[in-house]
């Protein structure tokens, strides 16, 4: 075992591949918002207000470039998401460039939340959030099937009661 990441793909449960679609929708909404802001100088110019050429060209190009870069790793981001229920704790991993793993002992759980936004609901997905007494130690597993999320929550709550520290 070299880094935790390399030993992972086998024993981690991946999130639903449909979550990629949710990410894609969110990505397009976000990118168009940024693009709209970046296009402001161009709009000003169209209305006859003075805006230098570089300000018209540079921001949209930057925004589009970054958005395309993000798009490239979007699928990998979804594939990197995963969780593992161990005997005494839950492990959640995420991230492609900045890789992370978070371990939360069941006994430290305060409450478990299952939420779903409009886009997630459309694809029958939900997001599970696991809170502890420390704000930074909050595990989030997005992109679970609605029924998987419910089951996981039941199991986590049961495990939390069984493992009170």
């Amino acid at each position, binding site marked *: 075992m*070299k*880094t935790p990441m390399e030993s992972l793909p086998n024993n981690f449960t991946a999130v639903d591949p449909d979550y990629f679609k949710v990410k894609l929708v969110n990505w397009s909404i976000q990118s168009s918002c940024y693009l709209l802001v970046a296009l402001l100088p161009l709009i000003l110019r169209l209305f006859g207000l003075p805006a230098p050429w570089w300000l018209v060209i540079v921001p949209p190009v930057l925004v589009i470039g970054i958005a395309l870069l993000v798009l490239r790793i979007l699928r990998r981001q979804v594939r990197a998401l995963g969780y593992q229920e161990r005997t005494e704790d839950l492990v959640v991993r995420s991230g492609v460039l*900045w*890789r992370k793993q*978070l*371990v939360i*002992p069941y006994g430290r759980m305060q409450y478990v939340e299952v939420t779903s936004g409009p886009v997630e609901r459309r694809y029958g997905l939900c997001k599970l959030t696991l809170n502890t007494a420390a704000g930074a130690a909050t595990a989030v597993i997005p992109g679970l099937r609605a029924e998987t999320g419910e089951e996981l929550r039941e199991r986590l709550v049961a495990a939390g009661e069984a*493992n009170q520290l």
Partner: protein
Amino acid sequence: MNQWQRVHPASPFVHGWLAIVGLLWVYWQNTDELSWADRFSGSRLTWTVAIGSAALLLVLIFYALSWYFTRYKISETHVYVNSGMIFRSQKQARIDKVQGIDIAQPLVARLLGLAELRFDVADGSASVMRLSFLRKAHAHQLRTEILALAQGEVAAPSEDVEQPPAAEPVPLMAKVPAGRLLASLLLRVPTIIGLLGALSVGIVSITGNGAFVAGLLPILLGFGGWFYKELNNSWNFSASATDTGLRISHGLADTKQQSLPAGRVQSIQVSSPAFWRLLGWYRVEVNALGVGDEEFSNLLVLPVGDFNAVTQVMGILLPDLSAENQREVLLTAITTGTTHGFINSPVRAKTLSPGAWKHQAFLATQNCVITRFGWLSRSAAFVPHNRIQGMGWQQGPWERRHDLAGVRLYSAGGTIIGYLHQLDASVASEFFAVQAKRQVER
């Protein structure tokens, strides 16, 4: 005891003195252009007096009602505080769940010799119950009585309120003299930046560039505010040992006494800002549950002190580091070096943290993890295994290129994080696996 009592009649004033200041300010704003003679002559005098006294009467009635509806009762089992006339609030706390009582004195209360009791109750409620305000001696007496009740004793009924609070025979652990505090604050980077800023503003304003000065002034005020906050919080600081933990008292304008049971401490950070290292000074903060005003701020338990003061305070908060020569381990933890089993970042980390790599280290003992990080300003965090709420392993792209990884240990009650920075990736993985087992051991 055991019957409803009222708080000190001046309490509403202490809560609401700003209202009176506000009234005066409004008056001042509206009569700015008048001279004093104009203000108090003819029909204007009548109006001023009439409106002024009406407003004053209104405020006084409000104060009186507020005072009338604020009552408290201490029974054998509970403390009750009722307040509010339109929105009634009734609060109660079970005495056997009371874990500590802080005595606080905001500036105005202090001028009037009043004090506020803040009950720290372990019943899961987030809000602190306050009883404000009482005469200081009375507050001290009540605190002693309630704490005695909380420990299962029946308090002796004492009628004599005038009697000064019984001096508790507690050994003094650390005291911060005013001179050292001021010196330590002057050596903090924000102070130095602020002073340099003030100096440059002075020079620029002599050469006459008003706009520039006006722009810098708010920033300077910010630094001034920071300095005052630190000073107010640390002035006349003393920490003493009690049966259960530490008792700290501090404050310049607003004085405060807080008790910190050692069992409430979640993690400890000993830090040494850049220039303090030359003098061997440290400051100690803790993450603690249910102590202090804000959820997301750390509790200061030693504003400035030398190594001896640190060992004394640490001896109360975390008496057992599970190391053989505890004192040397502590010294290594808060200075530098890899003796006593500390593992530091490999040389590969030099390109990422040219200054700090040598000093970043960690040590896992039987009952806690000690981590050290930082370059010019250095910190050491002590996180007991059974206080870890969650643990994160992380690796950024540049760390991956150098085969490095970091681990963070999160605990509740503040912002202190056990930070294992840029370790050899395999060391980090091994620690991550072993620590996951350690922190669920019972």
